[in-house]
């Protein structure tokens, strides 16, 4: 196995980590206005992700940085080509990030509801736009011979990609709901779980439809050599397991199933793409692959060594924080920091 493949796998790992961890953060943010009635309930919900959201977001930052270091052409093509979408996404992340810190800094209900809205929008918009982005990666975009995508925003908003955006949003809400299921207590938790049942039904319908559409419109599930069919089927099983465990009242297993859906779906996308990074719909010669878009062997070696040392350390201390903050959050306000 060469280092180009290793970095493709690492990119898969980073995006899986990002969608798994920020997936429930986004989901919690989107659920915030729908499940909480009073201020202390909203605070409880925000505080479930309070200690961890920032480190979770670093998975996205690192995915971007790793892309820059290992596949600079992908970094260049993707972010310059998807310019407007990325700017909107960054705006969402900006207001969400400060909202966590700012919202409980004043006692004024109008102030707090404004920041709650910021958390909602700042969670919904990135979730939707990542879905649209990933769907466009699966479908391919008009990449020219100079590796640039000149199409602008509108072609990215095609029906398939928009549908992909909806799938992401629904899966993240579902994932966020099961996260709240293991973090909250009492009546608030019951309300979330009721909602989780409904969003699960929506997710199943959307996901099945999206998989069929993916089979018809892309080669992700029947890419010669490698295809994403097996992880797609496993993701479907995990999705069914989510509904089953939710029904059984097994909160931990529900959360694990939802997480598996997201990880397996990410794996599906990357296996279906392999060894491509960004598909050109104009000419297959313009497609970015892990070879023509990559850094030099020397650079890949350097960053491989650094990643081999630090990724395990990161996993250890980040997991440790989930252990420290494993307790459930009640609406008793002495528990709350944000």
């Amino acid at each position, binding site marked *: 196995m060469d280092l180009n493949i290793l970095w493709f796998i690492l990119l898969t790992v980073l995006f899986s980590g990002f969608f798994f961890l920020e997936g429930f953060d986004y989901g919690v943010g989107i659920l915030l206005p729908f499940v909480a009635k009073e201020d202390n309930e909203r605070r409880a919900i925000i505080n479930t992700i*309070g200690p961890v959201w920032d480190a979770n977001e670093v998975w996205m930052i*690192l995915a971007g940085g790793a892309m820059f270091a290992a596949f600079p052409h992908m970094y260049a093509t993707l972010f310059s080509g998807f310019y407007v979408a990325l700017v909107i996404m960054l705006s969402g992340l900006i207001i969400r990030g400060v909202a966590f810190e700012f919202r409980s800094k004043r006692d004024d209900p109008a102030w707090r509801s404004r920041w709650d809205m910021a958390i909602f929008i700042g969670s919904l918009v990135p979730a939707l736009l990542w879905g649209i982005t990933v769907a466009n990666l699966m479908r391919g975009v008009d990449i020219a011979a100079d590796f640039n995508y000149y199409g602008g925003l509108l072609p990215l908003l095609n029906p398939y990609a928009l549908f992909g955006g909806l799938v992401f949003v629904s899966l993240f809400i579902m994932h966020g709901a099961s996260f709240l299921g293991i973090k909250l207590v009492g009546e608030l938790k019951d309300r979330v779980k009721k909602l989780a049942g409904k969003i699960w039904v929506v997710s199943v319908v959307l996901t099945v439809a999206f998989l069929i559409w993916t089979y018809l419109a892309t080669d992700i599930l029947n890419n010669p050599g490698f295809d994403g069919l097996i992880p797609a089927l496993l993701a479907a099983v995990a999705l069914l397991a989510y509904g089953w465990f939710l029904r059984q009242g097994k909160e931990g297993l529900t959360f694990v199933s939802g997480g598996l859906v997201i990880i397996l779906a990410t794996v599906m996308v990357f296996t279906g793409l392999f060894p491509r990074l960004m598909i050109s719909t104009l000419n297959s010669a313009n497609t970015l692959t892990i070879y023509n878009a990559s850094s030099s062997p020397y650079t890949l070696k350097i960053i491989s060594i650094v990643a081999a040392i630090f990724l395990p350390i990161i996993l250890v201390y980040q997991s440790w924080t989930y252990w420290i903050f494993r307790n459930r959050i009640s609406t008793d306000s002495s528990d709350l920091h944000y």
Partner: protein
Amino acid sequence: MDPVILSRWQFAMTTIYHFFFVPVTLGLALFLALLETKYVISGEEIYKKMTKFWGKIFLINFAIGIVTGIVQEFHFGLNWSEYSRFMGDIFGAPLAIEGLMAFFLESTFIGVWIFGWDKLSKKAHLAAAWMVALGSSLSSFWILVANSFMQNPVGYVIRNGRAEMADFGALLGNPNVWYQFPHVLTSGVAVGGFIIMGFSAWHLLKNKPENNKFFKISFKWAASVALVGSILVGFIGHYQGQFLAVSQPMKVAAMEGHWHTEQPASFSVIGIIDEENHENPYEIKIPAALSFLLFDDFSSEFKGLVELEAEEVAKYGPGDYIPPVTLSYWSSRTMIGSGMLMILLAGLAVWWSWKDELEEKTLFLKIMLPSALLPTLAITAGWLIAETGRWPWIVHGLQKIEDGISPTITAGNVIFSMVTFLVLYTVLGFIGIKLMIKYGISDPSAAEGQGE
């Protein structure tokens, strides 16, 4: 409108803005870790109270620093995709390593620090504080490794139509890093000190007996930190200038308004720059002083902008190679002037706080209120010199700014993003600073209230 010019403005604005908050994070993270260490060692509650009190300002600042930093991570791809393609093999690695070594550390342990007061032992919580400080310092190190390559490219070969990394050790050993990193780190230390002094001065002027001890200790600590930071940042800056006189003479000539080669070179203390005619019609000069400052003797030659430009033209072909001189010249005077004032003020602050005479020095305390922003002014001026002094290069000698732009973006795209960021940043800055002031002037002896 030209997307290149718009993109330059956007990058400048977002980076400068981001860097209002970064040094505060650097400095305050260290300051808080020191305070908490004192608390853990001595067991005195007042230091815990101080850590928590100043921690609130730190966290508000930290939040803005983080969210504006996300933009920077993607900014090279957004507006400078040709740069990313040409330089990604070298530039991407330190960014990825920054994520691996620094961002995770900072972001994970900030959560532990905020939420872990009652969940961890004192020592474990203290360790979290140090991890945050370490993370933010490491982050500045790696981003400066990347930036130093743009200023002084080393350890590369041009191959496959791009710059490729040939020697990672050379990238780390880039002398530019080892001037710039300590310069940035110590400037952060000074910023932290001056901000704490500013707020403490406000409270000492209020003169509430039950709070005086709290703010006198805070002031004393901050003064000591600020003095160390201010002196070091000045000394390192001096040697950095000597290094730049050799590695980037054009930058130094621009910051000194030095148009024509002189031997020995005189130092322009203050003057009026005429960029059109390449001269300074009015100025006060000290003979041979520039030679002394840059080369430690009174006889060395220092080339002027005009001669340096002729050399660049001979080397790289026709073009405009002179950076914006007026901006560099006044930025340099702002930076050095503020730096000297910082040493003076921090010196007085240390003197009077050790003699315990602060409360009597009301005029001095009043001066310390706006002086909280003095280091930020100096830092901003410094970055203006560093980055505009690279003109016309995005990477010195390798790629010009206009060649780094994303070919896919239109002027309309950049106007959209620039307005978006401008509006968001203005609103956030306004709210953030208001909140910092609210907490900075709040009464620490009052009951701990609504949230943290």
